[in-house]
C-alpha cells in the first residue's frame, strides 16, 4: 500500500504538468518535456491497450527527469512498474533515462494524457460540476505538472487510494483499438465521459506537497475545439512551441499516419488480435492485389451514385437532400441504377474479396450490412430475404445511420438456390432486383407494391459455378479475383513482419506465398503462428508450419491426374521437398484424395483411365493389381454405405493411392472425367423404365383376367426369359398382304399375334423416323431388349412397315371390339332385363365363329337366351374359361374380322346407364326419346 501511495502522488504530479507547459510556454528548460506532451496530444490516437500502464509511464518519465533529485522515488517507481507488471515501462527506464523525445517515450506520455482528466478530476478539493471543460483541463494541468516536478519536486498529494480506483476504472473505459484508429476526438470522448461523474476543477487546482504543504495551481481556461478529422488545428494551437519542434513533429506525422491507416503500430504487443484483422486494409488505397479488380468494383459502386446519392454525387455534405431525392427516384427514374444490380465477386479464399467489398463500400459512402448466406441457409433461407434484406434495402439505410446501406452477402455459393424452388435464397434475391419496374406500372400507391431495389448488393462467392448461382450469374456483374502478383504480397508481408518485430527472409516469405497460392489470410495466420514462438522466419519454419495448408483446394481433375502423373517440377520446388520426399507419396496422395471429397468419382476416374494407358504389361500384372485395389475400394465403400459403418471412411483414400506406383508416368495423357459409368446409368434407367411399363402392362393384365401371368413378373424371369422370348413370339415371319386374302395359315398366325399383343397391352404406334419415313414402333419399346450394340438379334426378322401396318390395324380393330364388349358387359350386368345383355354372350360366340352376315341383325334379335347363362357370365365365371373356349376354333374365328360392317354397327350402338337415387333397386328401361 505504501508503494502505491508513493507512486500515485507522482502520478498526480504529472497531472499538473501540462498547465505549466501552457502557462509558461517559453520556458526553455522544459522543452523536451513539452514536446513529449505535444506529441502525445496529437498522436494519442494510436494507443489503446497500453492505457493500463499509463500512470507508470508517466511516473517513469518523471523519474527520469528527476533522477538526481529523487533517487528514493526512483526506487518506488521501479517497484510500481513491477507491481503493474508493465514491461514497457521498465524498458523505457533502462533505455533512455534522459532523452525525452524518444518515440517510445512519447507513446507513454500519450497515455498519461488520456489518463489525465480523471486524475485531475479526483484530486481537487473544490468541486465543480462543469464537465464540458474537461479537455481544456486535460491539457492545461499536464503541462503544469512537469514544470512543477522540475521546480519543486517535493510535491505530493495525499489521497492515493481513490485515485487508484479511478485510474483502474478508467482503464476499463478506454476505447477499443478500432476507436483509436479513428481520428483523435473519439479518443478523448470516453475519457471525458468517464470523468464526467467526478469533480472537475474549475478555477484552480489545489494539492499538497511532500511536506504536506498545500499548493494551488491556477489554471487557465481554454476552450479549445478539437477537430475530429484534422490534426492540423492541434498543431496550430501548439504554435507556442518552437518552430523547429513543429518541424520535427511534421516530419513524424506522415509516418505515424501510414501506420495508422493500416491499423497498427510497431510497439503494439497486443496478442489478442489476429494479424488478419489487425492488418485488414481499411482504405481503398491500402488494398493489395489486382488494381483492376478493385477499380472495377469501385466503378460499379459509383454507378449507383446517381441512384443513391442523387445526381450531385460529389457533394457529400448534402446528404439529407439526397435521401429525399432518392425516395423520389423510385417513381420518377428507377433506371438510374446500373444495368446489373448485383455484383458478384468470385475467387479463391484469402484473396480479399470480403475486404474489398467492405472497403469499397465504405469508401463510396455506404454503410455495410453483411449477411452470411451460408449461415442464413441453415434456417429457411429464402425468408432471410424477406425478413432482413428487404426491410433494410427499402429503408435505404441501417437503423440509426444516415449513410445509405450497401448489402454484402458473403459466401453466397453456400446458399440454397439450386433447382427451381421459388423460395430459395438466390431466387428471391434475383426476384428482388426485378421488383422495381414491374410494380411501378401499377401506380404510385406507396404502401402497396414492393419497392424497387435502390441499394447496391455485393455478393461474394468462392465457386462461381456453384449450382446455386446459376440463376444469379445471368443478372450479376461478375468480377473474378486473380492471384495477386507475388511481389506485392511479399512486400506487404515484409512490412507486416517488420511491424511485428519478426525477422523475415524474403525467401521464406515468397515460399510462404507460393505454398499458400496467394492466400493472404493463410500467410498472415502462418506468420502469426510462427511469431508466437520465435522472432524470425526461415524457410524451413514456413515449410513445417504450412504442412497440410491449402491442399484442400485441389480439384477433382487435378487430384485424378496427380494419381497418374508424378509431381510437376515446379510444384516440387514450391513445396520444397527433396527427392526422397517426392518419392514418398502415400501421405501426400491420400491427403489429396481425402480433400477432394469425391472419392467415388475418383475411383471411377481411375477405373476409366488405367486401362487406356499403354504400358508394357505383358502379363497384365499391374492391371490385375489395379483392379484388385479398385475392388477393395468398392467393397469398403459398399459396406460403409449399406452397413452405415462410416468408420471405414478414413481408409478409403488409401485404397486409391496404389494407382500411383502402378501407373504413374511422366507425360502421360491427362485422365478425363469419368463419363462411361454415367452413360451406363442413364441407359440402365431407360431400360428399367421400359421394364416397368412392361410390368405395368402385365400386371393390369393379370388383374383383369385373374390370370397367372404375374409369375413372369419376378425380376430375373422378366429380364432373362420373358423379354427375349416375347420379342420372338410377337415377330413371326408374316408377309405383308391384304388381310382379306391371306392364306388360312398366315391368318391363324396373325390372329394369334394380335391376340397376344392385345392381351399384353403391347401396341404399335406410328411414328416418323429421322428420314421422314413412317415407321411403327412398339410401345412399350420392348424390342430394346434384343438390341445389343444397337443391332437387333439376327434370328428375328425385321418387321417391315407394311406388316406392322397390318398388325396395327388388326390390333386397333380388336381393341375397339373389346371396348365395345366391355361397355356392353357393364351395361348388361346392371340391366339384367335388358335384351342386349342376353344375347351378348351369344354375340361373342358369333364373333368368334365369325359370321359377318349375322352381326347386323344381332341388335334386333329378341333376347331369348337363358337368364341363368347371363348371370353366370356376370358372376365369377373365370374369364379364362370364357376366352379359352372360343380359341379352340381358331380357324373359323379368323373370318370374323373380315366383316368390317359388323364393327361399324357396334361402334354406333348407344347404351345409357341411368341410376335414380343411390340404390340400385329402382331400375326401369327407358326409351332414348325421353332423354333427347
Amino acid at each position: 500500500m505504501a508503494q502505491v501511495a508513493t507512486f500515485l502522488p507522482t502520478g498526480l504530479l504529472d497531472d499538473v504538468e501540462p498547465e505549466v507547459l501552457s502557462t509558461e510556454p517559453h520556458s526553455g528548460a522544459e522543452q523536451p518535456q513539452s514536446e513529449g506532451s505535444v506529441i502525445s496530444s496529437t498522436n494519442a490516437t494510436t494507443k489503446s491497450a497500453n492505457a493500463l500502464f499509463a500512470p507508470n509511464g508517466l511516473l517513469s518519465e518523471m523519474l527520469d527527469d528527476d533522477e538526481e533529485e529523487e533517487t528514493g522515488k526512483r526506487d518506488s517507481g521501479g517497484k510500481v512498474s513491477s507491481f503493474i507488471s508493465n514491461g514497457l515501462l521498465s524498458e523505457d527506464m533502462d533505455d533512455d533515462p534522459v532523452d525525452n523525445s524518444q518515440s517510445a517515450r512519447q507513446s507513454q506520455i500519450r497515455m498519461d494524457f488520456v489518463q489525465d482528466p480523471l486524475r485531475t478530476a479526483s484530486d481537487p478539493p473544490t468541486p465543480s460540476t462543469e464537465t464540458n471543460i474537461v479537455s481544456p483541463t486535460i491539457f492545461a494541468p499536464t503541462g503544469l505538472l512537469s514544470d512543477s516536478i522540475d521546480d519543486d519536486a517535493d510535491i505530493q498529494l495525499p489521497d492515493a487510494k481513490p485515485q487508484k480506483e479511478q485510474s483502474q476504472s478508467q482503464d476499463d473505459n478506454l476505447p477499443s483499438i478500432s476507436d483509436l484508429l479513428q481520428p483523435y476526438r473519439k479518443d478523448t470522448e470516453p475519457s471525458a465521459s468517464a470523468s464526467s461523474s467526478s469533480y472537475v476543477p474549475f478555477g484552480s487546482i489545489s494539492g499538497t506537497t511532500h511536506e504536506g504543504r498545500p499548493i494551488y495551481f491556477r489554471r487557465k481556461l481554454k476552450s479549445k475545439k478539437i477537430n475530429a478529422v484534422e490534426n492540423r488545428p492541434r498543431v496550430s494551437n501548439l504554435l507556442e512551441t518552437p518552430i523547429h519542434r513543429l518541424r520535427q513533429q511534421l516530419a513524424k506525422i506522415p509516418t505515424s499516419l501510414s501506420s495508422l491507416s493500416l491499423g497498427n503500430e510497431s510497439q503494439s504487443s497486443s496478442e489478442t488480435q489476429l494479424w488478419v484483422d489487425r492488418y485488414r486494409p481499411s482504405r481503398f488505397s491500402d488494398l493489395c492485389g489486382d488494381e483492376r479488380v478493385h477499380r472495377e468494383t469501385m466503378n460499379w459502386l459509383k454507378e449507383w451514385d446517381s441512384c443513391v446519392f442523387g445526381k450531385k454525387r460529389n457533394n457529400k455534405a448534402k446528404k439529407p437532400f439526397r435521401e429525399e431525392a432518392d425516395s423520389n427516384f423510385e417513381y420518377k427514374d428507377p433506371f438510374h441504377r446500373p444495368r446489373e444490380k448485383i455484383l458478384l465477386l468470385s475467387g479463391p479464399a484469402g484473396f480479399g474479396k470480403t475486404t474489398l467489398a467492405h472497403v469499397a463500400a465504405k469508401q463510396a459512402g455506404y454503410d455495410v450490412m453483411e449477411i452470411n448466406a451460408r449461415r442464413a441457409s441453415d434456417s429457411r433461407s429464402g425468408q432471410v430475404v424477406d425478413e432482413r434484406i428487404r426491410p433494410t434495402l427499402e429503408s435505404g439505410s441501417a437503423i440509426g445511420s444516415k449513410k445509405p446501406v450497401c448489402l454484402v452477402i458473403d459466401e453466397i455459393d453456400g446458399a440454397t438456390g439450386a433447382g427451381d424452388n421459388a423460395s430459395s435464397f438466390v431466387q428471391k434475391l434475383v426476384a428482388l432486383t426485378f421488383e422495381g419496374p414491374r410494380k411501378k406500372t401499377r401506380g404510385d400507391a406507396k404502401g402497396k407494391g414492393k419497392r424497387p431495389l435502390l441499394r447496391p448488393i455485393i455478393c461474394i462467392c468462392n465457386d462461381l459455378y456453384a449450382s446455386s448461382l446459376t440463376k444469379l450469374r445471368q443478372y450479376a456483374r461478375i468480377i473474378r479475383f486473380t492471384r495477386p502478383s507475388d511481389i506485392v504480397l511479399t512486400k506487404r508481408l515484409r512490412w507486416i513482419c517488420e511491424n511485428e518485430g519478426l525477422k523475415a527472409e524474403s525467401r521464406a516469405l515468397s515460399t510462404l506465398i507460393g505454398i499458400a497460392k496467394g492466400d493472404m489470410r493463410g500467410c498472415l495466420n502462418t506468420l502469426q503462428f510462427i511469431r508466437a514462438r520465435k522472432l524470425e522466419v526461415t524457410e524451413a519454419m514456413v515449410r513445417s508450419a504450412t504442412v497440410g495448408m491449402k491442399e484442400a483446394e485441389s480439384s477433382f481433375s487435378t487430384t485424378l491426374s496427380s494419381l497418374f502423373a508424378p509431381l510437376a517440377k515446379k510444384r516440387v520446388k514450391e513445396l520444397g521437398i527433396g527427392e526422397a520426399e517426392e518419392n514418398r507419396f502415400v501421405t501426400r496422395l491420400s491427403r489429396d484424395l481425402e480433400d477432394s471429397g469425391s472419392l467415388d468419382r475418383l475411383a471411377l476416374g481411375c477405373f476409366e483411365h488405367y486401362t487406356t494407358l499403354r504400358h508394357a504389361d505383358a502379363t497384365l500384372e499391374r492391371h490385375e493389381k489395379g483392379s484388385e485395389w479398385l475392388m477393395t475400394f468398392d467393397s469398403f465403400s459398399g459396406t460403409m454405405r449399406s452397413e452405415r459403418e462410416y468408420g471405414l471412411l478414413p481408409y478409403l483414400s488409401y485404397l486409391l493411392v496404389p494407382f500411383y506406383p502402378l501407373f504413374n508416368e511422366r507425360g502421360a495423357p491427362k485422365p478425363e472425367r469419368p463419363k462411361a459409368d454415367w452413360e451406363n446409368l442413364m441407359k440402365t434407367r431407360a431400360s428399367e423404365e421400359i421394364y416397368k411399363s412392361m410390368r405395368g402392362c402385365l400386371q393390369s393384365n393379370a388383374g383383369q383376367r385373374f390370370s397367372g401371368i404375374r409369375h413372369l413378373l419376378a425380376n430375373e424371369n422378366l429380364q432373362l426369359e420373358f423379354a427375349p422370348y416375347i420379342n420372338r413370339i410377337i415377330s413371326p415371319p408374316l408377309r405383308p398382304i391384304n388381310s382379306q386374302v391371306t392364306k388360312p395359315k398366315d391368318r391363324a398366325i396373325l390372329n394369334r399375334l394380335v391376340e397376344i399383343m392385345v392381351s399384353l397391352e403391347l401396341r404399335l404406334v406410328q411414328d416418323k423416323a429421322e428420314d421422314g419415313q413412317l415407321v411403327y414402333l412398339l410401345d412399350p419399346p420392348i424390342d430394346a431388349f434384343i438390341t445389343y450394340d444397337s443391332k437387333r438379334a439376327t434370328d428375328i426378322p425385321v418387321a417391315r412397315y407394311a406388316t406392322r401396318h397390318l398388325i396395327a390395324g388388326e390390333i386397333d380393330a380388336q381393341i375397339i371390339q373389346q371396348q365395345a364388349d366391355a361397355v356392353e358387359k357393364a351395361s348388361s350386368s346392371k340391366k339384367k332385363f335388358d335384351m342386349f345383355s342376353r344375347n351378348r354372350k351369344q354375340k361373342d360366340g358369333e364373333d368368334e365363329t365369325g359370321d359377318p352376315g349375322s352381326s347386323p341383325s344381332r341388335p334386333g334379335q329378341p333376347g331369348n337366351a337363358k337368364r341363368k347363362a347371363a348371370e353366370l357370365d356376370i358372376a365369377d365365371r373365370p374369364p379364362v374359361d370364357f376366352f379359352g373356349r372360343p380359341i379352340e376354333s381358331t380357324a373359323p374365328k379368323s373370318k370374323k374380322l373380315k366383316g368390317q360392317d359388323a364393327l361399324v354397327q357396334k361402334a354406333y350402338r348407344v347404351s345409357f346407364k341411368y341410376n335414380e337415387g343411390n340404390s340400385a333397386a329402382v331400375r326401369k328401361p327407358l326409351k332414348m326419346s325421353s332423354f333427347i
Partner: protein
Amino acid sequence: MTLWVDRYRPRTLDDLHYHRGLSERLKSLAASGDFPHMLFYGPSGAGKKTRISCTLRQLFGAGAEKLKIDQRVFLTPSKRKLDVNIVQSNYHIEITPSDVGIYDRVVIQDILKEIAQTQQVDLNAKQRFKVVIINEADSLSRDAQAALRRTMEKYMANMRIILCANSTSKLIAPIKSRCLLIRVAAPDSQEMEDCLMYVAKKEKFHLPSEAAQEIIQDSNGNLRKALLVLEALKMQSPDLTGPLTIAKPDWETYCHKVADMIVQEQTPGRVMEVRAKLYELLSHCIPATVILKTIAERVVERVDETIKPDIMHWAAFYEVRMRLGSKKIFHLEAWVIKVMSIYKHFVYSFDMEDF
C-alpha cells in the same frame, strides 16, 4: 388368349403334371385344418408359384383366384413414401418385398400386422386364417427376416405365411425352422416332354419328339422357359419340322461373345472392349451375377483343362465381392483381367515347355 405359359397353367392340385406325391401331400395338408407356415423352394421354372396358387385354391376354393391389385403407400421411418403393388384376394395377400429394396422391413411389418390383427370376416370362408405369400423371400434383408420371425409365432391364429424362394441358403435359420420346407424340384426331361406334348395337344398341333427334346435340353429344367421357347418356335416356323435352331436369349448370346473375346486376346485394349460390352449388358438390366456366371461357363468351355478350376474359383470369389460392393462393373472387370492374366500365364508356360 394369352401366352401358353399362362393359359395352360394348372389351376388345381389335381391338374399338376408332375410331382404327384407333393400334390397329394399339399392336398391333405389343406384338408387337415392344421395348415403350417410353408417355405417353397426350388429352381426357377420348376412350378413353385403354380403349386402355391393351387394350394390356395384347395384351401379357399375359387374365391382365392379373384384377385385385385392395390397400390399401397408405406411411410419409412425417414418419412419417405414407398409405393408398393399388392395383389390380394379375400383370403390371401401377395407381396414382393424386394420391390422396395432396403425398406422391405417396413412393408413386411406393416402388412403383417394389419393382416394379423383382423380376423377372417367372411363366415363362409373355409379357413379361419388368411395367407400371406412372400415372393422372392431369399432377397429379404436380414432386418426383414428378423421382423418376420416374431410375427410368425405371435399371429399364428390368424395368419399363415407362405414363402417362396429359389434357395434356402439366404434365409436365416429361425425362419426355416418355423416353416414346413417344401422342395419343388425341376421336372426331369420326361416330365417336361409330357407337359410340352400336353400343350401341343391342346393347341392342336403336332410336336415332333426331336424338337421337344431340343427345347428341353435348351431350357435346362425350366418349364416356363421351355414353354416360351416352344411358343416362340411355333410363331417363327409354324410347322416345327426340319432342323430347328432354338434361339438363345440375346443376352446369353452376347455374353458368349464377350467370353470369346476374352479368350481370343489378352491386352489392355481388349479389356476396354470387354468393358464396353459389359456396360451394355448391365444397361439391359441383366443381373451382374448372371453375367458373370454365363461368361464364366462359356470361358471354361473354351480353355484348357488345367486352368478351368482356377477360372471358376476366381469367378466365385469375385461374385462374392460383387455382392459386398456396389459397383458391379469393377468386379466384373477385375475378374476379366484375372482370367486374362491366368490365360496368359498358361500360354507362356506352355510355350516354354515346347522349347
